[in-house]
């Protein structure tokens, strides 16, 4: 998403949009809607996996869905913030990729949370992907996630979303 919007900005597509009464928030929400649709598609894949190949379903489906929604919103909000301010597609890609790797490193994709050093784990609790992964694991195991692990993505979603709408540049 950041690359798309930064590309629009680079080519002056956003500038043309700026002459219409559309506020930046609406444009960002439209992009968010597209992103959420993609996320839902991946959710459908998981459901299909559960049904067709006998993946283990989440122990607490409501908690898993809530976690999923919050996590997706948090990640997209960060993407929107990058998209709002990145001056070019290259910068957008650079920032996006760095955040992606930082995210998965702290999120326990390379090493599971159990094997992380205590210090890294604490930092991970406050990163959106880290909190998201922990919450997802908890709900898969049949428990409600810790409040912190739900609050962190929620705060990221709200904060980055508002900041993105505020800092948005048309050109």
């Amino acid at each position, binding site marked *: 998403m950041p690359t798309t919007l930064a590309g*629009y900005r680079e080519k002056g*597509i956003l*500038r*043309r949009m700026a*002459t*219409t*009464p559309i506020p930046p928030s609406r444009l960002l929400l439209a992009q968010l809607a597209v992103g959420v649709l993609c996320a839902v598609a991946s959710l459908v894949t998981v459901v299909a996996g559960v049904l067709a190949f006998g993946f283990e379903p989440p122990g607490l489906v409501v908690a898993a869905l809530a976690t999923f929604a919050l996590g997706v919103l948090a990640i997209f909000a960060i993407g929107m913030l990058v998209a709002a301010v990145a001056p070019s597609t290259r910068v957008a890609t650079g920032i996006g990729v760095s955040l992606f790797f930082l995210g998965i490193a702290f999120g326990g994709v390379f090493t599971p949370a159990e094997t992380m050093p205590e210090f890294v784990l604490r930092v991970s609790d406050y990163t959106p992907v880290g909190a998201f992964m922990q919450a997802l694991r908890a709900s898969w195991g049949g428990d409600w996630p810790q409040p912190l692990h739900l609050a962190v993505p929620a705060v990221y979603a709200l904060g980055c979303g508002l900041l993105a709408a505020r800092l948005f540049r048309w050109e």
Partner: protein
Amino acid sequence: MTVIEVRNLHKRYGERVAVDGVSFTVERGEVFGVLGPNGAGKTTTVECVSGLRSPDSGTVRVLGSDPAAVGSGLRQRVGMQLQESHLPDRLRVGEALDLYASCYPAPLDPRALLDEWGLADLRDRPFAKLSGGQKQRLFIALSLVGGPELVVLDELTTGLDPHARRDTWDLVERIKERGVTVVLVSHFMEEAERLCDRVMVIDGGRVVALDTPAGLTARTVPPQRIRFRTSDPFDAELLSGLHEVASVTVTGSRVEVTGAGDLLHAVTSVLAGRHVVVADLRADRPTLDDAYVALTGTRTP
């Protein structure tokens, strides 16, 4: 009714002064031309009018409100065609109009616009596959889709071939017939002469002239011009004494005489009397182009 009122507009980018005290008003239903060499401050001026930039100082009022103020609702009432504009490559013509129509509370019917601007056959054509003239027509249609009271057209025909340019002029005349006020930024004098009710010439960020195209030409350059060639070297003194003659310019074998009154008769009488043999004699009226060159001291591109 006054649609645009600009008073003492100033804008600088860092060290460079782009607009330096520009003032003008545009009345409802007018086609108002903004002319000037590249970098004269034309685009900056109209961008301040359309609210895309905020002026450093001076006042801008468009349809009674300040275009730079958030929530003035002005964007619903002003259509804009930017100097450089793009749409996503794969967006189709019909989709683009629907999309932009969705941005406005009371848009015109996109289908009717497609028909009116000769875009109906191109409805399913992606933006990247359109020719320059077709893109321009689409951008004009997009600037009108919100049903604006004022449209700003910035360098509408730059980069178009002569046919497409003339077609586009017809389109601008049709916008005017709708009663929409038009601000036209251009550096084609022929275009301004044909379309504009009044023109403002900007140079170096300042207004150097503001009048009707005819008034500007009459005020700036002598009303008549005669050009011819002679085989023998020509003595400018022969003609410069005549009271009809304002100037005589001899460049090699070419002679250019400007003046007023019965200039052609006065000049040809003298030439016949002196048995000067001339070729390629042409008499014409200087155009806005000549006035523009005289005003700005630069050649039009």
